[in-house]
């Protein structure tokens, strides 16, 4: 069977600004990336994975992601996630997934109150399909962050639960850019098919631009999308 390009839906909210970079990166890694406007009520029928991109949906008014979670497309995204579909939230997408209750915790203003835009080192805490399948356990990834509200917070008892359940997948390894609790950079939900991370893998897919490490995460997602689409076609 020839390898087909699996459809990966990239949701575009008003104020998203990394949607096209995400789509370009996913396409370069073998996906059929489809931009889906937030007012749509359905994902494309053959969607194999969903990406909620970075940006400033609804101007970050009230709290980051608090308004976008009520966008019409989010009901379909929740359903897709409930059906086991892989959903990746990057930066603002992570904030939206937390506000929507699809991921634990919440993102708050950086402890420094500064917007931080630089490469950070991330440690892969666990091989967590479908998001870090292509990584090695303990591998250090160089991926940029660029956010003002990237300080992930959860109460201590919840952090302990997440640690025990292996839901903390990515941690800041050499300095914490935001003040995130327990150096958390990326978490998955309890079923493991929804992940959010503050760093931007779509900005690290070419060595010419500093690092291709983000490609490991996105390519893992594309692999999972392909498997899902092929399984559905059988």
């Amino acid at each position: 069977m020839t390898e087909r390009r699996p459809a990966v839906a990239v949701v575009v909210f008003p104020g998203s600004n990394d949607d096209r970079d995400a789509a370009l990166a996913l396409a370069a890694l073998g996906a059929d990336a489809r931009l889906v406007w937030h007012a749509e009520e359905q994902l494309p029928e053959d969607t194999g994975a969903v990406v909620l991109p970075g940006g400033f949906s609804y101007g970050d008014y009230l709290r980051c992601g608090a308004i976008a979670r009520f966008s019409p497309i989010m009901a379909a995204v929740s359903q897709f996630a409930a059906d086991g579909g892989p959903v990746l939230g990057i930066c603002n997408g992570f904030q939206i997934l937390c506000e929507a209750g699809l991921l634990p915790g919440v993102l708050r203003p950086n402890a420094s109150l500064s917007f931080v835009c630089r490469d950070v080192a991330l440690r892969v805490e666990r091989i967590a399909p479908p998001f870090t399948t292509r990584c090695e356990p303990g591998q250090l990834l160089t991926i940029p962050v660029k956010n003002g509200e990237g300080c992930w917070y959860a109460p201590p008892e919840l952090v302990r639960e997440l640690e025990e359940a292996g839901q903390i997948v990515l941690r800041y390894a050499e300095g914490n850019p935001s003040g995130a609790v327990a150096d958390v950079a990326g978490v998955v939900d309890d079923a493991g098919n929804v992940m959010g991370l503050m760093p931007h893998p779509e900005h690290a897919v070419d060595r010419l631009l500093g690092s291709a490490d983000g490609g490991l995460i996105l390519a893992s997602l594309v692999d999972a999308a392909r498997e899902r689409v092929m399984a559905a076609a059988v």
Partner: protein
Amino acid sequence: MRATVLVRPKQGILDPQGQAVEDSLRHLGFSVAQARVGRVVDLEVDAADEAQARTEVERMCEQLLANPLIESYEIEVGPA
């Protein structure tokens, strides 16, 4: 009905904005032990009476205006 929602960062939650305000106030020579920064939402609500307005505003807080993980809220309701 007029309603005011006061949203506060929960105690124990790091509040970098409050910290910055506190530092600035000290810098200005004020003696401040602590500053916390929250948010006020003023609303005009269609409701038959105060009880109904309060119930409505509570639902608003739970769904959108506050995130219970990090914020607490207080509601005041009065005639328009």
